[in-house]
């Protein structure tokens, strides 16, 4: 396979080596990648639901925005090898949402407009590690980047930060979501380079 002389890909920046996970490159770009058309659910029809067996808790957009929100600054890492440092978001901690539901689940399946799903251990969306984000870089989250709200779980590869999220299903078992079904890693830790199942 021939090497293309001097080819480097996207504009990249130098990074402090221990800040960039293995196999990643640093960029200032924010590419838009998705598996389907950008949904446009009107805010007055939007709800966020947590489903735990027969129990369900639901918030309208206004109820959701009335919850305590925080500003989060974090590095993000895409499985396509691009990382972006110091991205800033505004969102509601998943802990805040889960506090309203009684459950003993070990896993969640995030579900979204358009049918996208992704699975995560409960442990990875609690303890201040995950948010439902409605703002990016000081502005309302753009529909192309998942607005009105997306899941934000920056310590895992960014396909786990599901765009257009509409809720979390609490489960006892870890079941693969959309990309995981086709061979992407069930967990997705960028520091262990868990891109594909078996990594």
């Amino acid at each position, binding site marked *: 396979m021939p090497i293309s002389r001097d080819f480097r890909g996207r504009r990249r920046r130098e990074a402090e080596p221990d800040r960039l996970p293995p196999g990643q490159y640093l960029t200032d770009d924010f*590419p*838009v*990648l*998705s*598996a*389907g*058309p*950008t949904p446009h659910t009107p805010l007055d029809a939007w709800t966020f639901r947590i489903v735990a067996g027969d129990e369900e808790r639901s918030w309208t957009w206004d109820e959701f925005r009335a919850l305590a929100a925080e500003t989060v600054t974090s590095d993000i890492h*895409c*499985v*396509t090898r691009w990382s972006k440092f110091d991205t800033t978001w505004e969102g509601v901690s998943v802990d805040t949402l889960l506090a309203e539901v009684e459950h003993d689940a070990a896993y969640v399946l995030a579900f979204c407009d*358009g*049918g996208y799903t992704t699975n995560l251990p409960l442990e990875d969306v609690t303890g201040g590690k995950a948010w439902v984000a409605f703002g990016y870089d000081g502005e309302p989250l753009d529909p*192309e980047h998942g607005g009105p709200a997306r899941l934000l779980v920056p310590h895992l590869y960014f*396909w786990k930060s599901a765009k257009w999220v509409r809720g979390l299903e609490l489960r006892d078992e870890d079941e693969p979501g959309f*990309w995981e*079904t*086709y*061979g*992407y890693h069930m967990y997705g830790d960028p520091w262990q380079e868990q891109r*594909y*199942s078996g990594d």
Partner: protein
Amino acid sequence: MEALDGNAIAGLLHDVFGAELTVAATVCGHCGAHAVVAECEVYLGGPGAVARCRSCRGLLAVFVEVRGVTCVDLRGLASLVV
């Protein structure tokens, strides 16, 4: 991102099926719409390629390459005639 069309995955399809597929006839498993592969909506989503019905946006096919092996899911198609 704006959707592309089946022309964008013609090379991938040729690698997977060993044939030129852009004029192959598809029937959507969700809504029954007829289209040739070139007319389907295609999203190059990062981890993989997703083909959707232009009429109903239903998922027709997903292609994901992992370690040199392409996983092909055609369950959204009621039929594909080459």
